[in-house]
Each structure stands twice: as structure tokens, then as C-alpha cells.
């Protein structure tokens, strides 16, 4: 490789840093959505790089469904403390208590969809004009059509058929009062890029990404962790299994995979040979062919 050629990870990093810096230049009050998952951890790492030696000039916001794996919250709080970030928590429980959302019922109940109400409320209450997030275009087919700078009307809605053209690296963040933007700095990264980057940069991630033994049960072919938030059916047998999580979402709809991968190298090897997408374990996406598109139009992240 020539001396003036970047590796793919360095080029993706440079692109993401450029995007995050554009956000700070073009918006007055941005926020970084932070779930405690690996993609948002990488985004935060990139934000720290973008403004070094200054501090990250925007807060992080966790839209908390209340249905978390405890390891995620412990990790989040430690990271915030160590790096001196500002954290805002938007609570789905509070939205339910205030009567703005209604809890789903039944064994497949999930608060995943309810995050939209809480997210839009938090954006409005904090007067955020831009919410950055760690969504990637390779995750889901509706996301493959998403822009880096994605315009939202004053109801927070996404109109996929009327998106602004995005040329070169010239981003248009102009908007009217009440509208906001969603910006996705790691749009062009794949799951594999994320893992390779985490290894190359020695980034800390929550322990549940690594193989461990946990009480689990199997529903619709997906391994689910036993938590207080999920009702199990009589036919579902809870037993200890050796698993890890590929994504970290709401505990009620995020499936685990049977895995012995206990190091980043082993995870990369496993991802390289795996034949199922990481969202294959997300029951929220399986609700219909256009489940993600429909949620995104309403303002879901």
C-alpha cells in the first residue's frame, strides 16, 4: 500500500470525525444518543477524537426503556464518570406514568416501540436541534437509504421518498424552527468494521458482548436472556446456556447467540464466519417486512 493511502478503518474514522465536527458547526444544540451498545460507544469514542484536546461539546442521551441488562447500565455509568461526559436520561417508564405511552401486553410485549415517544419528548424538552446516533446502513434495508444528515419535520417524522440529495461530503443541515436532524456518523460502517475498530482502538465494551453463562430460554428460535421483564410461557424451559449478545437493546426483544467467543479476536472470527445478520436476533424487526421503515417514519431511532 502506498504511503498516502489510508486503511479502510482510518478512512471510516476520518469520515465520521468530519461528520461529527460538521454537526457541532451547523447546529446549536446537538446531542449524541447513547444506548450503551457498541455502536454508540464507538460514536462517543469518535466524538472524543474529533474535539481532542477539548471535551466533547455535547451531552449524551440514553433513552432508557427500564428493561436493561444491569451490565449495560454499570458500563454506561463508569464510562461517563471516567470521561467526564454529561448524561441525560429519557425515561420510557416516565412516559408511561405520564400517560403518553401505553405498555404493550402479552408475552411478546416490548418497550422498543415506546422509545419513540420518549425520544421525541426529550428532543423537544431539551430543545435539541440534532440527535446523532450510531445507526449503520448495513443493519437493515430501510436504513440503507438513510442519509448522513437526515431531516425530520416538526413531528419528528422521516419522509424516505423526499430526502435531500447528499453530494460529496457537503452536508446541508438547514432547517426551519421546530424541525430537527438525525445524523449518523457511522453510516458507512459494517458490523465487522465496528469490531475491528474496537480491537484496533482497544475500546472498552460491556461484558455481555463476550461469552458467558446465563439463564436463558428459547422463543421462536431465538435465545432470550431470562430477566424480570420477560414473562416465560409454560413450555419455555429456562436453563443456563453459554451465550453472548451481538446487539444490546431492550432486554425484552434482544436475542443472544450461543457462543464461546470470549475475546475480541474470537468475536471477529465468529462474525467473519457467521451467516446470520446481527438484527436476526431482534424480534422487533421481525414484526413485518417493513417494521423498521414504519418505526423510522414515526420518529424512531
Amino acid at each position, binding site marked *: 500500500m502506498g504511503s498516502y493511502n489510508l486503511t479502510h478503518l482510518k478512512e471510516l474514522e476520518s469520515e465520521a470525525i468530519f461528520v461529527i465536527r460538521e454537526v457541532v458547526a451547523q447546529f446549536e444544540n446537538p446531542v449524541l444518543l447513547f444506548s450503551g451498545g457498541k455502536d454508540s460507544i464507538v460514536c462517543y469514542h469518535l466524538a472524543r477524537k474529533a474535539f481532542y484536546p477539548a471535551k466533547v461539546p455535547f451531552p449524551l442521551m440514553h433513552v432508557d426503556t427500564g428493561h436493561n441488562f444491569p451490565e449495560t447500565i454499570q458500563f454506561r455509568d463508569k464510562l461517563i464518570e471516567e470521561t467526564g461526559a454529561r448524561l441525560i436520561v429519557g425515561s420510557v417508564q416516565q412516559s408511561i406514568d405520564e400517560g403518553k405511552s401505553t405498555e404493550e401486553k402479552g408475552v411478546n410485549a416490548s418497550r422498543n416501540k415506546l422509545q419513540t415517544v420518549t425520544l421525541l419528548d426529550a428532543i423537544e424538552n431539551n430543545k435539541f436541534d440534532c440527535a446523532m446516533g450510531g445507526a449503520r446502513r448495513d443493519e437493515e434495508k430501510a436504513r440503507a437509504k438513510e442519509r448522513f444528515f437526515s431531516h425530520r419535520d416538526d413531528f419528528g417524522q422521516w419522509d424516505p421518498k423526499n430526502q435531500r440529495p447528499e453530494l460529496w461530503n*457537503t452536508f446541508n443541515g438547514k432547517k426551519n424552527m421546530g424541525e430537527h436532524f438525525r445524523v449518523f456518523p457511522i453510516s458507512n460502517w459494517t458490523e465487522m468494521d465496528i469490531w475491528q475498530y474496537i480491537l484496533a482502538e482497544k475500546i472498552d465494551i460491556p461484558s455481555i458482548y463476550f461469552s458467558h453463562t446465563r439463564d436463558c430460554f428459547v422463543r421462536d428460535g431465538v435465545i432470550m436472556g431470562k430477566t424480570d421483564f420477560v414473562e416465560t410461557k409454560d413450555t419455555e424451559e429456562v436453563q443456563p446456556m453459554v451465550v453472548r449478545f451481538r446487539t444490546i437493546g431492550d432486554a425484552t426483544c434482544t436475542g443472544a447467540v450461543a457462543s464461546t467467543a470470549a475475546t475480541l479476536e474470537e468475536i471477529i472470527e465468529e462474525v467473519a464466519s457467521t451467516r446470520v445478520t446481527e438484527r436476526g436476533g431482534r424480534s422487533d424487526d421481525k414484526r413485518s417486512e417493513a417494521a423498521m421503515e414504519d418505526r423510522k417514519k414515526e420518529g424512531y431511532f
Partner: protein
Amino acid sequence: MEKSYLNMDLLRFTTAGSVDDGKSTLIGRLLYDSKSIFEDQMEAIQQVSDRKGEEHVNLALLTDGLRDEREQGITIDVAYRYFATPQRKFIIADTPGHIQYTRNMVTGASTANLAIILIDARHGIVEQTKRHSFIASLLGIPHIVYCINKMDLVGYSQEVYDEVVNDLEAFSAKLETKDVRFIPISALMGDNVVHRSENMDWFEGATLMHTLETVHIASDHNHIDCRFPVQNVIRPQTTEHHDYRGYAGRIAGGVFKKGDEIMVLPSGFTSKIKSIDTFDGEIDEAFAPMSVTMTLEDDIDISRGDMIVRENNKPEVSQDIEAMICWMGDSPLKEKGKYALKHTSKDVRCMVKEIKYKVDINTLHRNEADKVIASNDIARVTLRTTSPLFIDQYSRNRNTGSLILIDEATNNTVGAGMII
């Protein structure tokens, strides 16, 4: 697994072809043969194909992400696809074949290193081939690969292939693009896509995948003319970094080294680079497209929109801009109309002083009589900006030679400009 990924680089390409040239099949083939399609994705499209009673698994369903697209069997918008081999990571900008064609292809082409243009071996060059080639050339894509597809339907005939290539060579000599290649393939059967064709042993060139993996892209960036548009000013204002004042940005051209004499535009003040800082420590040199932070020896007033360059190699500083504009607005481009304009990190306003001519994108003819520039038209214009821009020719630098126009009433991006 060996850590080959630490040496991988990144190639962005776009695919173009008229409606039935087999573009979706080709993308499906690249993804499938490079093992980038997952079982659950395959299972999902298989189910849909079965439900619709289609004979083959419809690989187009992989690329059509929106409900309307699937229902109407059309592609509406640019979609991005990803795959990797041990040599390279690839980003495909997959652009639709008909609706809003020019607008979408221009968007996809703006960031591409390479364009694949598909041609049906039975039909040879058609009107759309010329249009796709012209757009690829206009957008400064450094490499064009013409894939002469459906070779299986012409008996893998070398004669047919040679005839198409002869026509293409004559035509493509008129383009700006210097690196033009030709490959006979069958996307459906897989010939010369990832695996070398056993049906065309007369073809001695590389397969498409091998071409994508090895085409030289390091010189696609300009490493000669030093251009550093300032994005943000970094001022930590902490006790540790009390007087720190860094200029953050992404190198748009050239190589900057610690100790280099530089000039700041528009002020014209000169100084030296004191340090090039990153989170991982100081570095000695930085080149496009790296994102870095620079500090200077002297305290100069610099803000977003300024550009750091070399005194002996400056961009043109001008308020009068000659450009080719690809129009994307719903209402036509207005002569004497005013628009917001973005160029690198600079925001200005501009007036369209003159529409010189419209380009017929099928024949490349200049039409000086027709100045009604509607969506998907391409025109040569003169713009007058409210303050000077620091510009290079687009053919020399895609970063400092490009601009976008924004409708001030709707805030929509309505024009893509290539500076002449």
C-alpha cells in the same frame, strides 16, 4: 484469522445500467459470491419471491429497501451496500435506473472512485450508456469499468464482444476519464464476475472482482495542492491547555507537514505549522482525506470557512464562479435567482448571473437556445457569490471544486455544482 484487515483499504463504486441490463443481478452476484449475503436475508427474499410466485430468487429484493419500492417493483432512491474481501472493503452506491435518474446517479457518483456501467451484449451502446458515461465523466470518477453483460445470451462470442468494445472505445475517447476498462461477463451465470469464466477463455483480462480489488486508488486523492478548509476552532479552555488554539478539519488536498510555511485565506497572513494533533498523539504529516487538528506558530484570527494553503500554491480566490450544475430542484433553476451556497466549510449566498447553455446528456450537445433548467437537467452557469470562495477546478480537486446550491425558502438541496 490473520490481521489482514489492518492493511485493507476502501473502494467506493457506483453501478449504472438501463432497466433490464441486470444491475440487481450483478450486485446480488457480487454479494452472494463474496459471501456477503446472510442466511436470514436470503431466507427473507426467498419467502417473498415464493409468495409472489417468481421463478428465481429475486435478488433485486435485497436492494429495494422501502415498502413502495417493493410494492411497485421499482427503486426510488440511492441505496448503499457493503461487502469486503481480504484486500478491500467496498461501498456500492446503487442508483435506480429510471426515476430521478440523473439526480440519483450524480449523488451516487459524487463520492465514487469507480463506476461500473453495464451494457447488454445483445444491444451494445444505447442512449443510456452515453448518459451514464457522461455523468461518470462529469462527476470526475477516476475509473470506469464497462461490463458487457449477458454474454451467455450471445454464445459467449468474442466477435460480439469485440464489436461492442470497438464502439465503446471510440465513444469513451471523448470522455475526461483516463482509466477505462472492459470486461465480458454474465451476471446471471457468474462468468468473470468473481470467478474466471470457463466459457470465455479468449478473454485474458481480469475478472470484475479482481479489478475492483486491485485498481490503484491511492492517487485518486489530490496529494499535490495543499488545501485545509477549517471546520471548527478547538479551544479547550482548561488549565492544562490554557492557550491551546487548534484548527480542526479534513485535509481536502496535498500533504501538510509539521514546520511547513502556510498561508491563511482570506486574510493572507502567513505562519508555520506548529503541530498536527490527533487524539492518538502528534503526527509529522497529514494528507487527504485525514481529519486532524493543526496549531500554528503565530496567533492569527482564523474561523470556520477559512482555508489553510501554501503560499506558492494557492487556490483561485473569486466571487465569479463558472460551473456545470446538475439541477435537482422541483422548480426550475432561475436566471438572476438567489440561492444559498455551500463550498467546503464556507456558507455564502449567490446569484445565478447567467445560464449559458443546457447540456443534452444523451448527445453532449450544448443547447444555447433552451435555458429552461428543470430537475435532472445539467447546465453551464455563471454564479456571483456574496464573498470570495477559494476554488480549484473540479477536475483537479473534487473537494475544493464542488459546491451545492440550497433553496432558501425550502432549505432543500437543489443543485450540485462542478467548478470549471
